[in-house]
């Protein structure tokens, strides 16, 4: 049984923001509840009020606009699995969403909720970071865009202000001659290591153009790895392959892996290297 709470059902973002400002830490945004309700059942958190945001309109759509996919924060994982826009232009994200938890969680859990709960062992943030996604946060009076790097602060902590709500995720659609890969390693439903690579090849297809690498699940929050990117960027694909081990080691350390029941720090760092190698080669083969 859950402890009693009051349900608020606002219909605009402004109302949500006002409720959050008014009730502070005793109120929490509630969408799918797949992580929140579990924490509440465990007694780890308690709220006097839950703010049901599912009555807000327009936040559960996927739209393509000028090379950017606009994903409403209230889109469920299941919606993202099946969205035609994403199937055509962001198949790597579709594949990731298909493999989040289980079919029941995907049915009601939202992408926004997943990102805001910022559970360390989560997939979407990592790929979104490698794709250069931006999060849109709104409150009563303003709206701002936040890079994925700035969004994830620490385990269970985002940079959202107390009265802000995540409303949209904007993902630039990869151009032609690009490859995107997300690979994870884990036990049952909990991923313990996740690596995302998004890259483009040069026009002649022989060298690495732009490349973005992000790692997560092993440490407290998703992390982009510019040092590994620098090792591979601009190199011929052959040379890049030879330098994958080095890039993998750097990425492993960047992951800030924590030893726990999923594995030791060293083991997770090693897996980061393995997944980076495979993700890189997978992404190159897509180009």
């Amino acid at each position, binding site marked *: 049984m859950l402890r009693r709470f009051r349900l608020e059902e606002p219909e605009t973002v402004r109302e949500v923001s006002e409720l959050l400002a008014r009730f502070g830490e005793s109120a929490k945004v509630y969408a799918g509840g797949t992580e929140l309700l579990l924490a509440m059942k465990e007694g780890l958190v308690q709220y006097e009020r839950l703010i049901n945001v599912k009555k807000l309109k327009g936040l559960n759509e996927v739209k393509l606009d000028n090379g950017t996919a606009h994903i409403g924060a209230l889109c469920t994982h299941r919606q993202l699995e099946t969205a035609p826009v994403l199937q055509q232009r962001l198949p790597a994200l579709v594949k990731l969403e298909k493999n989040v938890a289980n079919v029941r969680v995907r049915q009601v859990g939202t992408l926004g909720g997943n990102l805001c709960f910022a559970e360390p062992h989560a997939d979407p943030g990592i790929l979104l970071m490698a794709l250069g996604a931006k999060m849109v946060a709104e409150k009563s009076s303003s709206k701002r865009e936040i890079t994925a790097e700035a969004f994830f602060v620490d*385990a269970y902590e985002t940079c959202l202000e107390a009265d802000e709500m995540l409303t949209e995720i904007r993902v630039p659609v990869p151009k032609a001659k690009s490859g995107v890969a997300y690979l994870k390693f884990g036990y049952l439903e909990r991923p313990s290591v996740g690596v995302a690579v998004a890259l483009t090849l040069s026009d002649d297809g022989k060298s690495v153009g732009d490349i973005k690498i992000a790692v997560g699940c092993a440490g407290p929050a998703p992390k982009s790895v510019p040092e590994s990117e620098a090792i591979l960027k601009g190199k011929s694909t052959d040379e890049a392959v030879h330098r994958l081990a080095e890039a993998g080691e750097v990425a492993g350390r960047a992951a800030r892996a924590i030893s726990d029941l999923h594995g030791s720090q060293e083991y997770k760092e090693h897996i980061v290297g393995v997944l980076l190698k495979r993700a890189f080669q997978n992404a190159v083969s897509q180009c």
Partner: protein
Amino acid sequence: MRFEKEVEILAPREKVWNFIWDVDRFIACVPGCKEAKTVEAGKRYSATMVEKVGPFRVEFPTTIEVLETEELSRIKAQASGADNKIGSRMKIELNVHLREQDGKTMLGFVAGVDILGKLAALGHGIIKRKADQVLDEFAQAVKKQLEGDS
């Protein structure tokens, strides 16, 4: 969980030793620690520890017992507390040592920390990281207090 920290303080040993027993100022260096009280000078103290990891918040009313002391060099203490709201208990075994090195004082801590109950569900790794952060901030705060004075 076991933690070891050593911090170099540009202050003489007596000053550091005396600072430790100045309970209010010492406790003020522990992030999240408030309401420090002396129950029995030199033997028993109480404080409230409040820590947060994202949305998860714990408040431990804590009792600190000094088990052994060696003037100017060593303290062994035990702290324990329980947060009934969140169904968790905390136990810390703390060994503090001071030694002089080239006119500076090396202040070292060895802490054995046990978290029992629901909080452990957060994951050993997250708690370890948080505790590490707290100890780091603590050591730096002590250093700042002592060096800032002179």
